[in-house]
């Protein structure tokens, strides 16, 4: 099928989520993404290949549920880059590719003989995008990271916290997702530049720097006003600093571990909340003004929590929304995936067919294009699933040649 990015071929060494998430976007929009994996180590560099969740009792390198989720619509081939023949095949593939992408630790691809200069010699306008924690220059360029470390370094963990508590951080690799988004942007920015000038380039993406850009106002408060975010009493990240809003928080509801988010943007929102709640404290004239509510947030939050505790989170969220106050139930995975018309109605959970796992629902893309919408049908590739297809179709080899390479341990 024809997609927005159908003319592009990506020679893809990415894995995990920080890299694979980037090329998932490209593949869903039509790019031909060819994953290259090591047959000797069974592609285990991408640890998600063989780890849970599993669809059934089977275990194995082709059965990781996370891997399938992040690698839909990609092709998978194996190349044993310890061999000269595999390096020659890689050279041929780079010559026929628009971009080379990887998220190894800095220097790994170069150690195999494929640094940017070498790839440029093969294809002068190649786009090369590397994505690692600290980038390829600077004092820490040899340091290793994974999502939680990137978040720790870049301030993202520290700024997610309640007062008097240690950092809560993010309960998942937010910066693997987001690093992947920046990597996909970088690939496309470089392709746009190439379309307009004919010039390729090496993009050095450091996930920690991408993370640092995500708390801009806090950084300017530091550089301009000298105010650090590390303070004796940590601000609550459930409250709203910029702009100040009160009440603004996450409150308990009826049931076990059930919560509701409420944001009163203005005195008018507060009046609406008060009319709905009908409690004595809603009529407290001292709380009619935002400035007073901001100064008294601890007490305010206690009163709100006493009220919300008596109610069902979905019913109260709906009632608040109907009166014009921003509110949302804190949704559990099953609630937002299976019982939320705003996700299913958007087509957010497409079913992909994986060669061994069968039909499995995966994350879709949260956008729709009127002319060239995304497309996810094929699951993540099994190890070497498309080696023969790619070597014959893209590089023009014969089936016999591929069989011989397999015999020699090249693929």
């Amino acid at each position, binding site marked *: 099928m024809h997609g*927005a*990015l159908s003319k592009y071929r990506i020679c893809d060494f990415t894995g995990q989520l920080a890299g694979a998430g980037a090329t998932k976007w490209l593949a869903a929009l039509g790019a031909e993404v060819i994953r290259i994996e090591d047959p000797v180590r069974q592609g285990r560099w991408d640890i998600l290949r063989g780890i849970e*969740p599993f669809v059934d009792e089977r275990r194995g390198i082709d059965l990781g*549920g996370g891997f399938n*989720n992040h690698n839909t619509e990609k092709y998978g081939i194996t190349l044993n880059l310890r061999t000269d023949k595999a390096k020659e095949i890689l050279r041929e593939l780079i010559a026929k590719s628009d971009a080379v992408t990887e998220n190894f630790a800095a220097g790994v691809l170069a150690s195999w003989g494929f640094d940017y200069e070498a790839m440029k010699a093969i294809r002068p306008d190649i786009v090369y995008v590397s994505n690692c924690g*600290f980038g390829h220059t600077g*004092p820490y360029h040899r*340091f*290793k990271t*994974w999502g939680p470390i990137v978040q720790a370094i870049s*301030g993202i*963990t520290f*700024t997610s*916290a309640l007062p008097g*508590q240690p*950092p*809560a*951080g*993010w309960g998942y690799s937010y910066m*693997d997702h*987001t690093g992947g*988004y920046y990597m996909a*942007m*970088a690939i496309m*920015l470089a392709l*746009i*530049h190439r379309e307009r000038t004919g010039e390729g*380039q090496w*993009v050095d993406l450091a996930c920690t*720097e991408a993370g640092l850009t995500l708390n801009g*106002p806090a*950084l*300017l408060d*530091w*550089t301009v006003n000298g105010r*650090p975010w*590390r303070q004796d009493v940590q601000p609550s*990240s459930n409250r709203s*600093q910029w*702009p*100040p*809003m009160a009440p603004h928080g996450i409150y308990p509801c009826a049931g076990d*571990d059930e*919560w509701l*988010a409420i*944001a009163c943007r203005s005195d008018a929102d507060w009046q609406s909340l008060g009319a709905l709640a009908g409690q004595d404290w809603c009529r407290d004239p001292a709380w009619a003004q935002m400035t007073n509510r901001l100064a008294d947030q601890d007490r305010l939050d206690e009163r709100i929590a006493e009220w919300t505790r008596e109610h069902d989170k979905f019913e109260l969220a709906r009632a608040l929304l109907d009166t014009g106050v921003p509110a*949302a139930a*804190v*949704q559990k*995975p099953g609630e*937002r*995936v299976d019982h939320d018309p705003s996700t299913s109605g*958007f087509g957010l959970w497409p079913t992909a067919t994986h060669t061994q796992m069968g039909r499995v629902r*995966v994350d*879709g*893309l949260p*956008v*729709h*294009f009127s002319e*060239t919408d995304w497309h996810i049908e094929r699951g993540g590739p099994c190890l070497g699933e498309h080696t023969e297809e790619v070597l014959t179709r893209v590089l023009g080899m014969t089936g016999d040649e591929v069989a011989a390479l397999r015999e020699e341990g090249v693929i």
Partner: protein
Amino acid sequence: MSALAGIRVIELAREPIAFAGKLLADMGADVILVEPPGGDPCRRYPPFLDDQPGDDRSLYWWHYHTSKRGIVLDLDSEAGRRDFRRLAASADVLLEAEAPGRLRELGLDYANLVEVRPDLIHVAVTPFGRNDPKSQLPATDLTVLAGGGPVWSCGYDDHSLPPVRGLGNQGYNTGCHYAVLSILTALLHRLSGGRGQFVDVSLHAAANVTTEAASYAWLVKGDTVQRQTGRHAAVQLTGETQVRCADGRYANTGVPPRTPKEFGAMLGWVRELGLEDEFPEAVFLEMGANWEGPFDLSLLGRDDTVTAIFSAGRDALKLIAGRIPAYDFFIGCQRVGLPAGIIYSPEEAFEDEHFKARGFQVDVHHDDLGRSFRYPGAPYRLPASPWRISRRAPRLGEHTEEVLNSLAD
């Protein structure tokens, strides 16, 4: 040449999309921010320069609107709409986050604008998507992250504490990342000879597919992850990875030792700090260091020796972290190849020598104040088509005349 030089983007000022406009503008796009008379409310958000509120003193505004030009148009007047149509005729991209229906009522929706600009790329960002009635209801970053999944996964082991929303408008940011991905994709399609198009971006959907295993543990197996302090939410609870160091700052212990070489390094570090006497498990570190060949990780929890060795590795990390400053712990771990990290506050990260050496701090001149200020720099480095803050955020209506005078009638 900047990657997006010559690409004109109209951004209809709204808080949730400001970051998307910045990402495009800092890559060279000619982003024209359209504000209503009186200005966008975000102009009045704190923090302020010297903590003094006032026009053009909002650091929030400064950050989100770098490299853009700003104009004022009253879309509720016929003259304003006429000017907007002239502007649209000159634009490659319209980026907006209006309530669904508003642009149609104004006669300025995609169907109208393609008449003046047939290859327009129109990207609409709404809370739940353009066709979802819930998009008419109010939403904020907090409600997007709460309803969309991220909040469920973040917080503490103690579930009597509320789950946590992280700072920084990350719900909006995620929507902005997808808006930019959509725009770049649509531009590439156009460069390949394709048409312009309309793109519908849902903030709620963007949050939903940015939760890692929370979504796919459910999709694959129907399992629900539970939040834990400072580490991944999980179906099966996991051991702590966040440690308070000797200086009171926290560190993430990362991936514990797994190879004989790493166990040897841990043993050496324990000895160097004089901690061997109070750490009887050091004997297991030594066994790990002398282990023949790689460990069979499937034996963890089944073979007592392998389990004790790995447990000693984790315990040694925690012991050391508690005895030295967080920064020394971070550097010490990384020197022996263990991916651990200090939990920096944003300003501590910003001042770290690594980011300084890479030129992450950039100066932006504010001609109106006669001063320069340091801003966060590039999220990625494209040497042939560099990221650059080309100008400070615009004052209200600063470029109205300049832009309108340049347009064809």
